[in-house]
């Protein structure tokens, strides 16, 4: 046999799964030569700008739009009253308790504004500039009400109300008690009998998702049909919800998420702006576009986290944990958005983490304040839970005088104990915490670092060194529909895929999981190339358009590969099965005698015969000759609904230098070993881990949404809302162990949230480990140098930051707050 005899399909001999392919979508995403929503220009398109409330809490008197209406280029101006009848309420799809109080969420305020940045009027103009110019011409009369800003205070009797028509600021009280659920013992008993109880109050600060591409929406009416392009994570869910909210029938609505530049949960939403764009387009019968500014994005797109966590842990003297009790206050902000209440509630199942707690109780109160609503942000409930448990494990270790890793080892689930039903009732399918931890210790050079720490302590070095751990797990692959139903989640968790074999043998894969930067096109192509034995380059992945990809539940909760990817694999299996019938017919052989390898059907024992699946695609397109009992198609689709979540885990170790003179902290080394099961593309996995680490470290060290005493967002620009860049982050030493998941056929586990969930407590634990011997027991996030310094000076957790923004750009906090501050708000620190 000579080389030329063999067609060059040998390339497929190397399996695609496991290959570190560069992402095929990146060239167009990075160069911007693609369709971002804001790039869209439609004939006759009008532009919207939104007048936003500069006050946190007020009754709206008159809204005078007459001057704005007269402005050049302005076509129409609407206030909330113009849409009061038809706007409905933005949906909340996760009523976590039957008696949850939902005040309703207008897209544009009618009677009352409840946070700075809430829409009060919308301007429609012929150009974007004309729309922007008219904003300041709208005159709104606000009767200011006292703002409710402090969550703890707001949860008591002694408080003003965020919504006057409600009885309290509490939206719901959600309880999970393992004793009552039958998954654990009695918590009170566990605590009363314990040798040691450690209690802490942690503040999980408010964050802003800060995706790279601001939100943007275009709506085109065509008769009674509407097409919406939106920079959203969830075109499918958005379509259903918009139909329910606005009354535009679902089949008259097409939603397209073109290329979308990041989301992190921040675009897992039905936004006021999307609803307004649809209402205006319907009212005027013209295409409209709205694109937010960065300032608008920071103050009005939903925020994340913002919980106060009261955590108690009980143990015996030997360090065996006996019970865990968590009480949470979660700041809903002013309204309930799509999954606002579910975000902290999801955490309920994650506080016990990888440890064998015999007893567990979780209580959560959702509190309204006059701030931007909170909702999903990378990890959504699980980073908060992981932070609390990994922090309190360190506190318990200190109390017991034990090594923090030893305490973890003593209590975690051993690799031979899987599958393991933990105290909150989840069945962890697989894992190996010992292996990941051993590898992480090796990567970071643990013993050397401990020796250096010792030296620095002994010499009283102004720069101290600390080492912090986080041995995390998470539940992801947001999925089992029945389980989601039992949690009152508004939808299922299945995912859909279809595969179309084109006449030339090329393959179109349609996925319901909508990417917004994750690399689905590359990973799905790898899956299909392996399954069908076609070249990687011959696969095109289609997504994000409800007309092209009619069924799907989109991308969030680290679900795309484990749920959506599995659907793709199952659809590919069906394609092969169908093609096999046709190939057998064409090869005049029995199906049972065919083998399928490298994309080719051949008759066993008859070398030289064969038909590639791509040839079968052409044959079935022509359909001149195919079996009697089949349809002339080898296309297939599949819907996958797994029976369990997936449970990635990992060990993260941070080594931190703390300059005790200035309070500056600096990550010296960071190593992590994540177990995400079978890896389809190691480069994508590493990228997800790196990005996740950056976000988790950012919570620990940099980011915080700060409001002043009037409810103005002082971190209203990237000058004050500090998002770190590559220059601020250390080198990451990453590796993986592979313990395949048993809940999907690929054995993969979600990776999208891992880095973010795991890293935050490792970083804080490391900083505390560096200075604990100097009397520091806690430092509130983010660990600003000032907080670290204050904790070193006076104990405590470093305290509140001053609420004034820095003076850059004249100290503007937000576009809307300039000129309307009161003495208490003092924007920019200029008195």
């Amino acid at each position, binding site marked *: 046999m000579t080389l030329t005899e063999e067609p060059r399909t040998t390339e497929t001999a190397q399996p695609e799964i496991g290959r570190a392919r560069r992402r095929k979508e990146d060239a167009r995403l990075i160069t911007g030569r693609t369709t971002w929503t804001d790039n869209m220009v439609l004939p006759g398109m009008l532009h919207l700008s939104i007048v936003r409330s500069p006050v946190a809490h007020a009754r709206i008197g008159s809204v005078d739009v007459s001057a704005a209406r007269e402005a050049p280029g302005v076509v129409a101006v609407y206030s909330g009253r113009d849409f009061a009848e038809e706007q409905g309420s933005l949906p909340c799809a996760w009523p976590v308790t039957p008696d949850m109080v939902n005040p309703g969420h207008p897209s544009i305020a009618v009677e009352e504004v409840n946070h700075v940045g809430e829409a009060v009027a919308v301007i429609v103009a012929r150009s*974007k*500039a004309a729309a*922007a*110019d008219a904003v*300041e011409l709208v005159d709104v009369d606000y009767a200011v009400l006292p703002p409710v800003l402090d969550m703890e205070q707001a949860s008591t009797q002694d408080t003003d109300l965020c919504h006057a028509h409600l009885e309290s600021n509490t939206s719901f009280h959600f309880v999970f008690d393992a004793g009552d659920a039958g998954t654990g013992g009695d918590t009170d008993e566990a605590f009363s009998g314990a040798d040691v109880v450690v209690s802490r109050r942690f503040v999980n600060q408010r964050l802003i998702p800060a995706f790279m591409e601001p939100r943007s929406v275009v709506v085109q009416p065509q008769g009674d049909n509407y097409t919406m392009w939106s920079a959203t994570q969830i075109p499918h869910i958005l379509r259903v919800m918009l139909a329910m909210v606005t009354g535009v029938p679902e089949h008259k609505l097409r939603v397209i998420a073109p290329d979308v530049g990041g989301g992190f949960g921040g675009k897992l939403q039905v936004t006021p702006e999307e609803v307004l764009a649809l209402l205006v387009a319907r009212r005027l019968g013209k295409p409209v576009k709205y694109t937010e*500014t*960065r*300032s608008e994005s920071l103050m009005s797109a939903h925020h994340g986290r913002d919980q106060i966590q009261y955590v108690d842990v009980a143990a015996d003297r030997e360090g065996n944990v006996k019970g865990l009790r968590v009480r949470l206050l979660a700041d809903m902000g002013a309204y309930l958005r799509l999954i606002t209440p579910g975000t902290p509630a999801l955490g309920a199942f994650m506080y016990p983490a990888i440890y064998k707690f015999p007893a567990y109780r979780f209580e959560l109160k959702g509190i309204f304040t006059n701030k931007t609503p909170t909702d999903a942000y990378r990890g959504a409930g699980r980073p908060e839970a992981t932070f609390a448990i990994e922090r309190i494990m360190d506190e318990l270790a200190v109390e017991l005088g034990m090594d923090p890793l030893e305490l973890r080892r003593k209590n975690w689930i051993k690799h031979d104990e899987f599958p393991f039903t933990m105290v909150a009732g989840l069945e962890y399918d697989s894992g190996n915490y010992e292996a990941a931890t051993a590898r992480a210790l090796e990567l970071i050079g643990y013993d050397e670092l401990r020796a250096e720490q010792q030296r620095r302590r002994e010499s009283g070095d102004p720069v101290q060194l600390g080492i912090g751990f986080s041995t995390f797990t998470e539940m992801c692959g947001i999925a089992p529909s029945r389980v989601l139903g039992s949690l009152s989640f508004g939808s299922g968790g299945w995912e859909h895929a279809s595969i179309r074999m084109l006449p030339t043998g090329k393959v179109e894969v349609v996925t319901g999981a909508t990417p917004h930067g994750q690399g689905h096109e590359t990973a799905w192509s790898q899956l299909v190339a392996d399954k069908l034995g076609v070249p990687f380059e011959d696969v095109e992945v289609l997504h994000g358009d409800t007309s092209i990809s009619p069924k799907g539940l989109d991308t969030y909760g680290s679900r795309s590969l484990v749920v959506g990817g599995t659907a793709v694999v199952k659809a590919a299996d069906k394609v092969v099965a169908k093609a096999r019938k046709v190939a057998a017919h064409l090869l005049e052989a029995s199906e049972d005698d065919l083998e399928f390898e490298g994309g080719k059907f051949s008759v066993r024992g008859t070398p030289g015969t064969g038909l590639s699946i791509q040839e079968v695609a052409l044959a079935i397109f022509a359909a001149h000759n195919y079996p009697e009992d089949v349809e002339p198609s080898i296309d297939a689709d599949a819907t996958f609904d797994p029976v369990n979540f997936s449970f990635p885990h990992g060990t993260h170790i941070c080594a931190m230098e703390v300059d005790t*003179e*200035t309070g*500056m902290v600096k990550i010296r080394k960071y190593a992590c070993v994540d177990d995400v099961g079978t890896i389809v593309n190691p480069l994508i996995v590493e990228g997800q881990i790196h990005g996740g680490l950056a976000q988790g470290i950012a919570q620990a060290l*940099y980011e915080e949404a*700060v409001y002043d005493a009037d409810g103005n967002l*002082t*971190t209203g620009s990237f*000058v*004050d809302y*500090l998002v*770190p*860049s590559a*220059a*601020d982050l250390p080198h990451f030493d990453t590796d993986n162990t592979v313990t395949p998941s048993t809940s999907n056929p690929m054995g993969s586990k979600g990776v999208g949230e891992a880095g973010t969930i795991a890293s935050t407590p490792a970083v804080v634990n490391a900083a505390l480990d560096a200075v604990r011997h100097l009397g520091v027991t806690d430092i509130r996030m983010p660990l*600003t*140098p*000032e907080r670290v*310094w*204050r904790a070193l000076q006076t104990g405590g957790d470093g305290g509140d*930051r*001053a*609420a*004034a*923004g*820095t*003076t*850059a*750009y*004249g100290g*503007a906090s937000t*576009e809307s707050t*300039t000129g309307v501050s009161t003495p208490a708000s003092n924007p*920019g*620190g*200029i008195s």
Partner: protein
Amino acid sequence: MIPAAFAYARPTTVEEALQAIADGGEDVKVMAGGQSLIPVMRLRMAAPETVVDLVSVSEMRGVRDDGDALVVGAMTTHHDVLVDPLIAEHAPLLVQATETVADRQVRARGTFGGALAHADPAGDLAAVALALDAEMVIAGSGGRRTVPAADFFVDYLTTCLEEGELLVEVRIPKLRGEWGVRYEKFNRVAQAWSIVAVAAAVRRENGHIAEARIGLTNMGSTPLRAQATEAALAGADASAAAIAAAAERAAEGTSPTSDLNAQADYREHLARVLTRRAVSAAAGL
């Protein structure tokens, strides 16, 4: 984030620029690199009637040797400062500080003169100009005048520039003798403004500190000199103990603000620590 409409002029000489300002109406803003001006216009905190863009005024760009002093054109960009051999030789403190300004993109457009005229106390270059006893050459309809840095910075975002005047160049006296310099900047992320920074130039003579000049960034509404520390260092031993004792006085006479990054007492503390570090490094310790 679209600025309000404005008229635009692009003169090519200082004379034309002054005329364009005079003709520009009620509210005229000159634009250098636009790195501070354009953001405030986009936030609509400034809405000038006319913007006079200095980008084509080539006589305001570049560095020349004028005997005892360097003359740096106001329109010289941060990037040009960083690669200029004369500045590297005679004003290395300016190089050190400019390296810490923002990021590559901002340094490619932002200018030395624009940064000084903007007079943001958190900006890094004003304290350096003050520490180096620079002089500002100002052109107006009545001709040119020269103002020492100490009189140039008047208040928060305010200089002694009158309406219709331009900062055309900055004279920086060359350091003669055995000088060491250090710009010690404290910020939370790489591209941010200073929370506090200290610009130190120290002249050593026979194991002693003959003279120290110390500029403070963001310790008040203008850049300041740490006068008490300077006085304590004059003639002091070049020893760690002497420097530490003198640095304890670095916050005297300052009045820093409180903001998200630092409250006033913490800024005062930082000024002391950073002054000790900057002076020690400049003194070669």
